[in-house]
């Protein structure tokens, strides 16, 4: 593949000064917007997850006019609601030695040295404010008998810094943000537009000035004008069709911005979670995550013999392979997510998978029950066991769980600078939709932290700095020709999709795309597979526009039409992910290239050549995207190799 590179240096706008002082200095000097002027500014916030919800509530509270948009019927249902495990903060309440520095360091290391130091440090700094804010809103975090907040430990850290609300941390944090938004709606500071989908970005004189949306109930295409656009639209894991993401999670808003000039950074970095409930059949519509904590007591194994079809209880101890314990004697079942996922894939590739589909491995609690007693196991994992049984109909106290890895989170996203601004002035990107803080791999409990940091504590400052520098009351209205043209394009796309009337459904195409992505741009990638993926995705895309069948009309509630437009964008994104994976000739974090591994099969990072952010610029539907590099400088942390042997 030919990669077009440009020498243009991407300016990350990181303030000068000591790492520890950058954010404070930034805040000291950033320009402010006066209260009277805030009222004259309209901010379009797309998405109501943790990032969008917290941003909308805070900006409205500051006095801006906010218009909020989401796909679901209520802001409260954004995908963030599903997060289970918890949220990190450097509070050091347990006094076990945590500091802001340590949270920063763990996040940089966990990200396999592919993130920007200054952003990550700021994230660690504001993490504590998030917990204070959430408690003030009434988020019922778990507490100890003494009445103080409880913490637990999570993968990749030696301290207990994770705050949680049962297995529903995302729900409670999102409801906190949603309730804060609701207050602002009642006070008239937020105009809430639910069941609206952003179809495109309107750029006028090089600045993001508006969006085009579709009313998902009536099909009406609408224009919205603003002084800035905040994209908080989540991740793109659903490009794999099956993932732990909610059904409506998609890339459309981000992809449309990419096509209007926003660079897409590190699209190949995908996180695959090792402990999900396996696929049971063709009709499978999504995957359910089982908390990682299960690996604390469960033992992972497969039968030695790939032809062994006996039920697990009849397979004697000496005919089982506890492959994680065998391969990683010091970490055993607790190796990090990516290592555990790849190891499970390898066993299944070798034909030793279990269950009907042979795409699963056992996670066995028999020893834990023997050692601790059934009650103790129930106390620890009771609700997870119940969830497993509800879905599979099997009782994990009696038979081992069957688990398999699933796509879970996307570290890549639109490129943003320190101020969270994309390469289109006035377009800011927050939460999972941006690429910023997790490098090549995200640690557990840090996505919630990042979304809320962006929305509550970063954007209120950086947006003001931007707005203070742009003119007020220009004469742009939604009658501007750019609005008309962008709206027309959106409408034409819809009409085109409806007019094809082919033989294959949107879901069939999406499943096929997912299979290509999973096989070639999944847990382990290689040159040949990636080249093949680029070709087969392009061919599938071609076929899509000839042969997709989208039922019904535009002027009604039409879920299939919504999905048709999203899948069309996934069919373009998939190819960019493959290209990015192809060009990155190293293994880092969630990106494992089979050609770049140690003799023992461990990831081989190449800091010499690849310590940069790959930011792709759209140059036309039939042209190769241009690669821009943001070199990463590690002034404070020296990159080292991870080892879990």
């Amino acid at each position, binding site marked *: 593949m030919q990669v077009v590179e440009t020498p243009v240096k991407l300016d990350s706008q990181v303030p000068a000064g000591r790492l520890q002082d950058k954010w404070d200095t930034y805040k000291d000097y950033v320009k402010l917007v006066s209260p009277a002027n805030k009222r004259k500014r309209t901010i379009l916030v797309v998405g109501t997850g943790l990032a969008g919800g917290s941003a909308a509530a805070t900006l409205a509270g500051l006095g801006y006019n906010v218009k909020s948009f989401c796909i679901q019927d209520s802001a409260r249902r954004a*995908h963030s609601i599903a997060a289970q495990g918890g949220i990190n903060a450097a509070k050091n309440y347990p006094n076990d030695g945590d500091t802001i520095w340590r949270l920063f360091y763990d996040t940089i290391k966990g990200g396999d040295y592919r993130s920007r130091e200054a952003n990550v440090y700021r994230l660690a700094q504001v993490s504590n404010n998030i917990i204070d804010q959430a408690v*003030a809103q009434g988020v019922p975090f778990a507490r100890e008998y003494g009445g103080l907040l409880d913490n637990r430990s999570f993968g990749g850290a030696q301290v207990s810094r994770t705050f949680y609300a049962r297995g529903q941390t995302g729900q409670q944090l999102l409801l906190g943000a949603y309730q804060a938004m609701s207050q602002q709606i009642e006070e008239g500071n937020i105009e809430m537009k639910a069941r609206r989908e952003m179809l495109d970005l309107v750029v006028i004189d090089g600045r993001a000035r508006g969006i085009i949306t579709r009313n998902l109930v009536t099909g009406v295409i609408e224009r919205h004008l603003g002084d800035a656009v905040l994209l908080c639209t989540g991740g793109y894991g659903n490009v794999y069709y099956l993932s732990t993401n909610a059904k409506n999670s998609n890339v459309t808003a981000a992809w449309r911005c990419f096509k209007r000039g926003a660079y897409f950074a590190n699209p190949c970095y995908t996180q695959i979670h090792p402990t999900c409930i396996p696929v*049971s059949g063709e009709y499978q519509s999504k995957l359910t995550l089982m908390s990682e904590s299960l690996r604390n007591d469960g033992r992972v194994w497969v039968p030695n013999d790939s032809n062994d079809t006996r039920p697990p209880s009849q397979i004697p101890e000496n005919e089982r392979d506890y492959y994680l314990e065998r391969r990683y004697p010091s970490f055993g079942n607790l190796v990090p997510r990516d290592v555990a996922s790849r190891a499970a894939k390898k066993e299944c590739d070798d034909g030793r998978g279990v269950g009907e589909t042979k795409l699963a491995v056992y996670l066995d609690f028999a020893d834990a029950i023997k050692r601790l007693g059934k009650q103790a196991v129930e106390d620890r994992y009771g609700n997870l066991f119940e969830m497993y049984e509800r879905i599979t109909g099997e009782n994990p106290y009696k038979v081992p769980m069957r688990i398999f890895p699933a796509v879970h989170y996307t570290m890549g996203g639109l490129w943003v600078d320190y101020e969270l601004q994309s390469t289109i002035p006035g377009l800011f990107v927050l939460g999972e939709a941006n690429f910023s803080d997790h490098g090549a791999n995200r640690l557990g409990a840090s996505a919630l932290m990042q979304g809320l940091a962006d929305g509550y504590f970063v954007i209120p400052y950086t947006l003001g700095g931007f707005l203070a520098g742009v003119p007020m009351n220009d004469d742009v209205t939604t009658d501007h020709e750019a609005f008309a043209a962008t709206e027309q394009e959106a409408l034409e796309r819809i009409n085109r999709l409806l007019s094809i009337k082919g033989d294959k*459904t949107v879901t069939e195409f999406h499943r096929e795309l997912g299979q290509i992505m999973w096989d070639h741009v999944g847990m382990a990638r290689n040159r040949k597979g990636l080249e093949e993926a680029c070709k087969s995705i392009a061919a599938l895309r071609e076929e899509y526009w000839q042969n997709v069948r989208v039922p019904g009309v535009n002027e009604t509630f039409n879920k299939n039409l919504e999905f048709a437009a999203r899948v069309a964008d996934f069919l373009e994104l998939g190819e960019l992910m493959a290209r990015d994976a192809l060009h990155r000739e190293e293994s880092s974090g969630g990106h494992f290239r089979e050609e770049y591994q140690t003799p023992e099969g461990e990831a081989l990072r190449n800091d010499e050549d690849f310590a940069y952010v790959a930011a792709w610029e759209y140059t036309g539907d039939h042209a190769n995207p241009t690669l821009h590099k943001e070199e990463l400088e590690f002034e404070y942390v020296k990159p080292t190799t991870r080892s879990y042997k």
Partner: protein
Amino acid sequence: MAKNMTIHLKVWRQAGPEAPGRLVDYTVKEANEHMSFLELLDVLNEQLIKEEAEPIEFDNDCREGICGSCGLMVGGTAHGPQPRTAVCQLHMRHYNDGDTIVVEPWRAAAFPLIKDLVVDRTAFDRIVAAGGYISATTGGAADANALPIAKEKADAAMDFASCIGCGACVAACPNSSASLFTAAKIAHLALLPQGHPERTRRVVNMVDQMEKEGFGDCSNHAECEAVCPKGISIAGIATMRREYMKAMLSS
């Protein structure tokens, strides 16, 4: 091998709020015991699209019982026959080959129908906007541990806070009351010290809004508690009444 089964469905079809609606018969031959109920509808929809018919519209998103998007009357029960289970987590193994299942939308005056099985639940958002929050200006919060809260209180608050806002309580109630939904929020916030300064205003405004939206009164049928996928207790309704009485006495 997974058991294949044939399932007959009678599904409510209605093109729009003003259009006439009716139950339409469908048969899915490739149902399977491992499928979720929504996956059964997916399979049916794929079938319909192939037959050039319009697929059935129904709200859903997380498919793991937490977002509250899904909500169907399945066989006459909100979310179907499994206790503490949202319909997206209901699996076909609870049915038998040849069964006939009636599928209808939530029915309540305050939840106007949009299309097929999709209803408008924005009344819930307006009830929350009327007072279901604690005012906390971003950035002005005290240290999270400055105010200890007894574990029992925090746990009880969490029990109420786990409401997913699906609307099953309304759909199951003979009076279409939104009392369990409203009470869950009031009880959650009343149990926490942070919620106290606004408690009077909160309960009065939320209860007023609930009435304005056209939800009925609660007459203690407890059908709501029985269908709630999160098992929210009707004890919350008693708390709401107490809070309301106190508010009335103090004003």
